């Protein structure tokens, strides 16, 4: 069903993208996995696209295809963009990895940028954001603000990205208060406002007084607002949905990276690279700290600054796994490989990781 819809949408938009061409402009295409109206992941990527338009004005021309499902459809959509004369194509979901590489092979002159993947080639770069840095900061805030010492965490799918976020959050919380507990509910969906709201209600009913999430809609924040508990926004600043409950939000900000990459293309200096940016690269930005005392906000700012400068690393040892074994010794930092493939919980998570 969904695929059929995506195909229809892709076809229509692809045609539209193909029709509007100008000869001398640099053309940039985007492929989104969701609707830009999701107010989350795809919405933020589209912000990046708009930033390119703003920065370069008449020199560039951008187009996008939304609602592209991760499968055979993706290859067709990417190929269509490549054929219609785009010079640089951003494919913004993990599942677009292989289709992007395949198309890139057939169109060696076109440059590709794939988000959150790990396979590169001469004309394919990868980029991702270190959201866990932000999760560490909100973990600390949660520990300061919670009275029941229990945090409710609404998670999507048990992939390393999400597990890493849960671990970073708890490590942050435990750095303030070692007794902090975390309850996890997997909704097995990136996007289902109803389920996310139900999960938030269940967590609050079970005694969580702080809600955080790794799913895409503001529904959980809205529930928190109604029930009078605190919560964090996800992917974009969601303060409008929780004026009294949002403490801050981890905002994905692709603007600077996108503008830099287009600049490199215009200068003829584009090369295949791998970027994993966090606070330092401004890919991860904290929304304004709201509803919290000044000293907690100061602490959060200090932590964020320390992570940005490299002085503090959320995954610096000693870290113990859930089963009690030591993951890393004191003073050492988990390497990128372990982080990218993380499939275990740190000690203190009140949940069994689905395998």
């Amino acid at each position, binding site marked *: *069903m969904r695929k*059929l*819809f995506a195909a*229809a*949408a892709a076809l229509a938009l692809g045609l539209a993208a193909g029709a509007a061409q100008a000869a001398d402009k640099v053309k940039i295409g985007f492929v989104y996995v*969701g*609707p830009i*109206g*999701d*107010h989350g992941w795809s*919405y933020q990527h589209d912000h990046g696209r708009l930033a390119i338009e703003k920065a370069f004005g008449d020199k560039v021309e951008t187009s996008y295809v939304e609602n592209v499902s991760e499968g055979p459809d993706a290859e067709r959509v990417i190929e269509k963009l490549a054929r219609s004369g785009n010079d640089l194509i951003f494919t913004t979901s993990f599942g677009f990895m292989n289709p992007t590489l395949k198309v890139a092979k057939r169109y060696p002159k076109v440059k590709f940028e794939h988000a959150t993947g790990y396979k590169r080639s001469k004309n394919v770069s990868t980029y991702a954001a270190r959201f866990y840095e932000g999760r560490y900061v909100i973990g600390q805030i949660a520990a300061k603000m919670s009275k029941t010492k229990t945090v*409710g965490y609404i998670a999507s799918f*048990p992939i390393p990205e999400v597990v890493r976020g849960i671990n970073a959050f708890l490590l942050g919380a435990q750095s303030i208060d070692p007794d902090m507990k975390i*309850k*996890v*509910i*997997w*909704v*097995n*969906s990136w*996007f*289902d*406002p*109803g*389920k*996310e*709201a*139900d*999960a938030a*209600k*269940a*967590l609050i*009913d*079970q005694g*969580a007084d702080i809600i955080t999430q790794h799913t895409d*809609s*503001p*529904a959980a924040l*809205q*529930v928190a607002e109604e029930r009078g508990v605190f919560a964090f926004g996800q992917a*974009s600043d969601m303060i*409008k*949905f929780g004026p009294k409950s949002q403490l801050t939000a981890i905002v994905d900000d692709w603007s600077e990276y996108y503008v830099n990459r287009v600049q490199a293309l215009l200068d003829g200096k584009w090369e295949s690279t791998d970027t994993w940016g966090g606070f330092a690269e401004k890919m991860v930005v904290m929304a304004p700290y709201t509803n919290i005392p000044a000293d907690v906000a100061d602490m959060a700012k200090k932590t964020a600054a320390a992570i940005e400068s490299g002085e503090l690393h959320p995954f610096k040892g000693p870290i113990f796994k859930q089963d009690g074994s030591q993951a890393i010794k004191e003073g050492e930092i988990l390497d990128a490989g372990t982080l990218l493939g993380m499939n275990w919980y740190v000690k203190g998570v*009140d*949940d*069994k990781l*689905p*395998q």
Partner: protein
Amino acid sequence: MEILEAILITIVTASTPLLLAALGELVVERSGVLNLGVEGMMIMGAVCAFAVSLTTGNPYLGLVAGMLGGVVMSILFGFLTLTLVSNQVATGLALTLLGLGLSGMVGEGFVGTPGVKLAPLPIPGLVELPVIGRALFGQDPLFYLSVVLTIGTTWFLFKSRAGLIVRAVGENHGSAHALGYSVIKVRYLAVMFGGLCAGLAGAYLSLVYTSLWIENMTAGRGWIALALVVFASWLPKRLIIGAYLFGTVSILQFHAQGAGIGIPSQLLSALPYLATILALVFISRNRAVARANTPACLGLAFVPDR
């Protein structure tokens, strides 16, 4: 006790949209029409309800708009399948695609804006009952409406003359036509009732469940409603069991996860579907009853020959 009450309240919220949408589809299918566009009508109901309640500030106007949104979609479906006699399955699928796309366009300006919530309407006295009071008598008006509609539909289909005609049209449209009933007119009305209920279900999502608008926010609930109708073997009272069982297991599995019992979450997520299918298959195991309740002309086109 408190947690039990909280769970009950959440279960009611999770089940009501399913019940509403399924109830409409049940009447549609009883008249012999298979409308697979429930999801599309629902999402249009959601976006219309949200847009109107936000611009006017009145959630009740939003409700009306939601119903209208669903009805307009269903009339389109009726025109294509009943008047132009197009294929019902293909048209229903197209209606879903259209609804998802169109709602995204209509709702573009409303993304990222908190909406107006339909306030609960507690029934004085009864709401103070222990445990069940707030869950059953402290709810929003749409929940009461869903209960009234279910009872009303049962009465209508099985106790009223008009309901008998609807069933006759779904059972054997040739005979109904020969008896002088307007098959097309009856089916139009049934399809519109289906649209109205789906619109209400959508409005429930964007006004009560979560007062916000996001594309695709129905997230497949229209399809679940469709499946419920079949598993309930076209009987409204079984629909209540199905919808509430689904809602109950969905909510309980969240609580089980939150409590940290070590069952894989993928299995728990699948539980509502499994439990509902098993239960409904069990109560529908009498095949004679099931066959008797399946509208014989379901999905068949009707072209009156004079």
